[in-house]
């Protein structure tokens, strides 16, 4: 028994990502046609060359027909997956395993979400019926509970804490401002961020990720075949996925300053990839900044900062685009937007661009310093009851 990973056995050889927007003129079908055709073009293959598909969407369609119908796929296997906000990553993980198993030569992972058509404010996906005893607490409210707990545990006063989360929003907006695919392409002053209307707890509107529509996709092949498609593939180093027992919510010892699911999935991924010091070894990380406070806690759960030191590192600029370890250089969920099923693949898309030196004027400097690994971390659910995905990809096979 054990988690062994499939390091260097499969590669990404093509990716595509639509702009994340309020796509009033495009539906799920059009977004899927956009991302899939861009991706096959990027890999230089024909759609019919793809042997199997994994489609991730949380609530924008049921069954593989959601993909096969708009693209008129010719009797190919299409799996449809859902795993909360980690849905896109889950599509990617399963496609990788299918190729690694030898079952298929070329597989595609596609993520899509159409959130804006329902006309609701904030994230609104259909609930599952039941006995009606679930308290109606919104996502920002659930995540906002991390704030006071973190601040109290580490002696951060209210104003300092607000400065920390404000800086995370400011950084991610600054990164997104440079990115033509991002939903919000504007730098925002710290004053505007910190004075924005409160949504829940200490979280204001600018502490919340963008609700948007979008799609992203990746083509995966066995590593030995990768150079048939591209001169610079991305090797999949680690894929880890954890669903927590959701027992922290009943646990009187749990203090709301950590996602154990993230800690476990990060540990597993680092072990698979052979990483001992992520902060020194990674060129970049895309993490699940659904709310600014989430990114703060993730810095510690991922081992990018010591426990209790994440807030200081944020203020010191450690995770800025030109910092020691760039985090969310594409703008993150915060300013790139968060169409649920597409977000995990969007994170990989940034690794695809940055690690291979194709990010243009957004190119991060850590690549020049010889760093070759990128990480994605994708969370689904909320504090105490969540799933976490971590992947590591790199430009070279490991020694």
């Amino acid at each position, binding site marked *: 028994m054990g988690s062994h990973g499939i390091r260097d056995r499969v590669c990404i050889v093509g990716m595509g990502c639509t702009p994340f927007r309020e796509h009033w003129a495009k539906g799920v079908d059009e977004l899927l046609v956009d991302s899939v055709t861009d991706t096959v073009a990027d890999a230089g293959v024909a759609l019919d060359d793809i042997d199997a598909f994994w489609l991730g969407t949380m609530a924008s369609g049921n069954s593989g027909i959601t993909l096969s119908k708009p693209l008129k796929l010719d009797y190919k296997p299409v799996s449809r997956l859902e795993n909360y906000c980690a849905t896109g990553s889950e599509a990617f993980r399963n496609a990788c395993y299918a190729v690694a198993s030898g079952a298929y030569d070329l597989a595609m992972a596609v993520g899509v979400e159409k959130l804006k058509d329902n*006309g609701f404010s*904030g994230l609104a996906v259909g609930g599952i019926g039941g*006995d009606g005893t679930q308290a*109606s*607490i*919104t996502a920002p*409210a659930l995540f906002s*509970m991390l704030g*006071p707990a973190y601040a109290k545990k580490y002696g951060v006063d209210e104003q300092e804490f607000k400065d920390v989360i404000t800086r995370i929003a400011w950084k991610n907006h600054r990164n997104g401002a440079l990115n033509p695919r991002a939903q919000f392409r504007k730098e925002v002053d710290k004053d505007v961020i910190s004075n924005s209307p409160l949504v*829940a707890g200490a979280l204001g509107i600018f502490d919340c990720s963008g609700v948007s529509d979008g799609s992203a996709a990746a083509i995966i092949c066995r590593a030995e075949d990768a150079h048939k498609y591209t001169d610079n593939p991305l090797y999949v180093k680690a894929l880890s996925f954890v669903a927590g027992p959701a027992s922290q919510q009943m646990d009187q010892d749990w203090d709301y300053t950590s996602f154990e699911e993230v800690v476990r999935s990060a540990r597993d991924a680092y072990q698979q990839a052979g990483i001992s010091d992520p902060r020194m070894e990674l060129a970049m990380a895309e993490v699940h900044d659904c709310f600014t406070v989430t990114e703060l806690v993730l810095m510690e759960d991922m081992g990018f900062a010591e426990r209790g030191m994440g807030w200081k590192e944020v203020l010191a600029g450690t995770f800025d685009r030109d910092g020691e370890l760039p985090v969310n250089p594409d703008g993150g969920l915060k300013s790139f937007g968060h169409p649920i099923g597409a977000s995990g693949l969007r994170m990989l898309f940034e690794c695809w661009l940055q690690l291979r030196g194709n990010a243009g004027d957004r190119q991060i400097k850590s690549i020049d310093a010889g760093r070759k690994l990128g990480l994605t971390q994708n969370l689904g659910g909320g504090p105490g009851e969540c799933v976490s995905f971590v992947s590591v990809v790199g430009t070279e096979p490991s020694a």
Partner: protein
Amino acid sequence: MVGIVSYGVYLPYFRLKREAIGAALGSPAGRGTRSVASYDEDATTMGVEAARAALRPTDVAPSWLLFATSAPTYLDKTNANAIHAALDLDSSAGAYDMVGSVRSGVGALRSALATHSSTLAVLSDVRTGNPGGADERDGGDGAVAILCGREGVIAEYIGGASATDEFLERWRRPGDAASHVWEERFGEDVYVPLAEQAWNDALKNTGLVASEIDHLVLTGTHPRSIRAFARSMGARPEAFVDDLSAVVGNTGTAHPGLLLATALEKAEPGQIIAVVVLADGAEVLFFKATDAIAAYRPAKSVTEQIPTTNDTLDYQKFLSWRGFLRREPPRRPDPVAPEAPPSHRHKSWKFSFTGSTCEACGKRHLPPQDVCAGCRAVRQMRPERMADVEATIVTFTIDRLAYSENPPNVAAVIDFDGGGRYRCELTDVDPSEVAIGGRVAMSFRRLFESNGIVNYHWKARPMRTGGA
């Protein structure tokens, strides 16, 4: 001996100042306040709270439950069953509604006294009238539960009388927001003779004379007749029990029980209490306090509940809670209505707030689990009723996005005394007073209404000095 064994009173947290009505409508509306059921309360939830209070000082489990209200949540479906479930009564105990009219309140009490087993009469009401009207101004919301039986009696029922007549004085059709009343001098002409008849019959039946009454409760739906009859009863002026109109208002179906509770709080062994109710006729009941009343302590007295409240409620908010002011709904999906089969499967969780405790390691779970979150033992759980266990706030948040009829929503993570953690909404709460370490108690509430289904469950409410 048959009589009252225990009683419990519930007055809601909110009070509306009558001057707030006057200020909004530009007409004088008198002084004082009226009690107001919050947006997440109804006659059923207040009935549960009163019934919990009534059962706390006693070990007696009622074998019947009678629920009286003029404001039932459901027709066709028995509202008393939700109270029965919330109290975790045995399924062999009967539960019945006496629903629709104010008179059903005193009727439930009389029926409870007439049964041979221990019967809990739950009298609860939400009183509403058209904006600016007397019913709105003088009404009140609240509940009382009176446990009647033969053992441990604190006030013996020593007799009474009824007078019933058919006349059109006050009426409301199902679904109507407010009642209609006839010209009030006609009512006086009918009520006073009925009251005199019942009063004289009751005195004759019991051999009492009016001047022997120590505590006289006189209430009903027709103030003019009540004032007129009071003058002719022959009772000592100091015997009249304050009608709580200055602070609470007339709680309709619940009011005879509420005033009886205030009388029981003051009564000494051997004293005589009279309850006289003018509602579609006249009812008179006489009680004699027993020696046991000296040692009896209610869970929360009316006196304690009167001051611990919030009287800053806006009249506009009151109107929107009562459905007279329709506010723009948020751009959010409607909540998903609870489904009947899971609501029934999880009845003990949903209604009586029963979690589970692992028999292998002792860990408490809310909601109940099959597999222990601590030691992973499978199906070694015993039910653990948590409704009466107090808790402490671990962390909380003010949720400004969630839809609420009393925004902002406050959600909290709470740790129960003796173990168990739960995340829930807080109610009857001032967001500025919530703090980590604050003490809370559970309260039965409506979480929301969807598809015509009222979704009942539990919220936590801050514990304040003096109770309430």
